[in-house]
């Protein structure tokens, strides 16, 4: 059992629109991963839908490349929609 693969667990809460990552667990296969996720992460009515994904299938960005990946966005304030004047009386924009 020491070689059970790792799975990432995503839960959609009762009022949530999307599945949110909640943690990981070990399981021998997909079917048991889903059941383990039910037992480990939804014991207290946390969710109405579950996804499990093999951790090895997730492609992650490299922490060493953080600067090239994310820093260039720092000074691009024009990408935020803050340069429009909102007409008075418009509430839901």
């Amino acid at each position, binding site marked *: *059992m020491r070689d*059970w693969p790792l799975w990432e667990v995503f839960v959609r809460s009762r009022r949530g629109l999307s599945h949110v990552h909640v943690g990981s*667990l*070990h*399981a*021998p296969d997909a*079917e*048991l991963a889903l*059941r*383990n996720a039910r*037992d*480990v992460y939804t*014991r207290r009515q946390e969710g109405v839908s579950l996804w499990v994904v093999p951790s090895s299938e997730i492609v992650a960005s490299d922490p060493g490349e953080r600067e090239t990946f994310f820093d260039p966005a720092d000074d691009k304030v024009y990408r935020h929609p803050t340069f429009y004047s909102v007409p008075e009386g418009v509430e839901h924009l």
Partner: protein
Amino acid sequence: MTLFQYVLGLADDALVSAQRMGWWISRAPELEEDLALANIGLDQLGQARSLLSYAGVVEGVGRTEDDLAYLRDDREFRNVWLVERPQTDFGVAMARLLVFSTWQCELYAALASSSDATLSAIAGKAVKEVAYHRDHARLWTLRLGDGTAESHGRMQAAIEGEWPHVEELFAPVDGALVDPQSLRSAVLGRIEEVVVEATLTVPTVSPAIGGGRHGLHTEHLGHLLADMQHLHRSHPGVTW
């Protein structure tokens, strides 16, 4: 009084099984399985509490769920032998859970439409829980039975060990709202389906004597009750 004995039998089955399941907490092969077995045990304990409370009401002399759980001796317990024997082997625990939860599934489904409003409500809630227990036991029976030569052999031995105690579930009981015998073919059919799918062989062994419904038990129940009851008996009314 017969309804009292009947409800007590169902309550004791769930209570004793919950206590045995509790043994696995911190001992299961993986943390995830530890939680799953604890969940299952707690589901059974919840069923036991509802059933014991109702048994107290039916009896009508003011005994509470705690009085019934903690202050009866083994000869007053009405559970079947299936649930009272130790289950310190994972294969045995899964084989037993497969048998017990399949029986509970059929029983609770039938009780849910019985004429007794309280039992019908308890059963209606519990049937969803035991369906999950059964699924858990089924998945492990399939994986161990159809796994390695070692796991196959041990799962077969586990099924053989539980099999003599299956028949007691169908023994006639006074006051039964669901005739135990009427569940026999459905329960056996569903268990055998899993056993065969797991590439295991359905045992052909003679039934054990049984007698739990009449208060006759194996030596193991006394030890289990000593564990379960000693705190309450040593410190009456203790809470935390």
